[in-house]
């Protein structure tokens, strides 16, 4: 059962388009702050990449509380995209992030195509930023609040606008609240996305029977955590089987076994979200667990695992 292959022989490197990562374990946007919050608990230099909390052009105050509620094996959040805005992000958060060896990916959000484009422009020159992740689960204000991530044409338009403004690799983060996730992935692939990441949260709700009120001030919120893993895995498999750009798997990953399921389904890398809350050491444990798995399976490279799901008899 024990190490057939010594640690140094394991090759964990993966490529997200032009971006090379030391390993496939990343943090998910909004669940790892700006990195510094976990500096005492996790060796930030060991992570494949950190995706920071979603950034908008102007600072956003976020939603009134309560903003979070626990559900069965999951949680709902309605943070309301609270963030410090792009200027303070660059001035106050990037200096620390530049000191980390892991890759830094900036998650961006907007309420118009122009805002996304402008953010991409602003962030492109900044030292230490390795890629952008576009959160398209946001409402398009000009289209009556329909989320960019639910209409292929709108997602494509955002992708194109961002690509025009930046030379950084662009990852488009897909919303699972759609009939056809493959159509969304294909639309952004054709628009030049270097990779897709999925899934963002599923829209959910909770009610307090005693008070007869919603448990979130915002009424609805985003469901994340182990509860959604089967849905995320299915979508990752469907998308990875269809597009040719790399897929980053997200959704309910809490253990190395979970992460490996996504890699087998075709994800080139994974993001750890809610698990950082209930187990702050999750990312490093998952990395160690993946190494252990590779040795057990007699593989020397992580790339032998990716997409290696066995179908048929």
């Amino acid at each position: 059962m024990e190490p057939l292959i010594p640690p140094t022989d394991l090759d964990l490197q993966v490529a997200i388009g032009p971006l090379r990562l030391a390993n496939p374990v990343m943090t998910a946007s909004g669940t790892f702050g700006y990195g510094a919050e976990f500096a005492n608990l996790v060796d930030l230099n060991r992570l494949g990449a950190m995706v920071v909390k979603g950034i908008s052009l102007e600072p956003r105050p976020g939603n009134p509380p309560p903003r979070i509620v626990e559900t069965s094996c999951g949680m709902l959040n309605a943070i309301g995209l609270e963030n410090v805005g792009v200027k303070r992000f660059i001035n106050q958060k990037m200096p620390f992030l530049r000191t980390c060896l892991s890759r830094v990916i900036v998650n961006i959000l907007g309420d118009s195509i122009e805002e996304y484009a402008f953010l991409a422009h602003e962030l492109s020159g900044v030292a230490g930023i390795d890629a952008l992740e576009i959160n398209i689960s946001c409402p398009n204000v000009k289209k009556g609040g329909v989320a960019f991530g639910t209409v292929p044409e709108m997602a494509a338009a955002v992708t194109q606008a961002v690509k025009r403004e930046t030379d950084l690799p662009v990852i488009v983060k897909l919303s699972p609240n759609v009939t056809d996730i493959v159509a969304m992935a294909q639309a952004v692939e054709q628009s030049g996305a270097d990779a897709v990441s999925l899934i963002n949260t599923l829209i959910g709700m909770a009610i307090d029977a005693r008070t007869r009120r919603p448990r979130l001030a915002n009424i609805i919120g985003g469901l994340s955590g182990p509860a959604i893993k089967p849905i995320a895995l299915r979508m990752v498999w469907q998308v990875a089987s269809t597009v040719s750009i790399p897929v980053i798997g997200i959704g309910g990953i809490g253990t190395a076994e979970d992460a490996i399921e996504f890699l087998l389904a075709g994800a080139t890398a994974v993001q750890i979200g809610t698990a950082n809350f209930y187990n702050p050491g999750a990312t490093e444990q998952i990395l160690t667990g993946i190494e252990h798995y590779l040795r057990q399976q007699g593989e020397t490279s992580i790339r032998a695992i990716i997409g290696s799901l066995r179908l048929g008899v």
Partner: protein
Amino acid sequence: MSEYQENSVVESIERLADALYRLTLHAPCIAAAAKPGQFIMAACGHSLDPLLRRPFSIHQAATSGTIQLLFKVIGRGTNLLSELRPGQSLSLLGPLGHGFQLPPSGPLCLIGGGIGIAPLFFLATKWLQQPRPPESCVVLLGSRTAEEIRQLATDFSELGCLVGTATDDGSLGHHGLVSDLLPPFLSDLKQVCTCGPTAMMAAIAGLCRDTAVPCETSLESHMACGLGACLGCAIPGADGHYKHVCKHGPVFNAEEVAWSR
């Protein structure tokens, strides 16, 4: 400041009243780093349901490497905690947040309502590490009935505090609100530190503001991470901006908080 994810071991668990427990845990890293007013996040149970850690104030921390939690069973997480037995393990994350800021000298008044009493015991212990007279540490405790505070009132007395009590049903001390006990002391106080129901703290903050006595209040909010990362624990601040209870607090100067919302 440093946080630890520490696998603590239960040393003892005492039932102080119907649903009130005191849990003693061996957690040397957290015990050594803890400051009064800080809290830990405990992973209750061994499955993914319940999923999130629960926040608890540090009730006591000893140089021997133990910490104590004082908790009330109100739901699934606290119920799981109440079933812990000596020798079992409990994963803790802490110490977290921003504790009480204290003046150089007293007198100090600590006012606790219900389970809000929890952080005040560690605070009183630290405050009285320097030799001080009882009047320098007035402790006012309020609860529904006597049984919830009898043991705690004794503990504070033995520590060397001047203790006053109030109960809703009049079964111990003043029959009424604990905030009723504060006015006679106010003029002499250097500071008030309080933790308890929001309405109680708002009333106390009002009294302190009127008499220009600094007031430190410990607040609650639903939390996912406890680390300032999820932004879930926001409460409205007096300046119109949201504050994050886990990072800016849980202890806030009363003036920073928007009490009326």
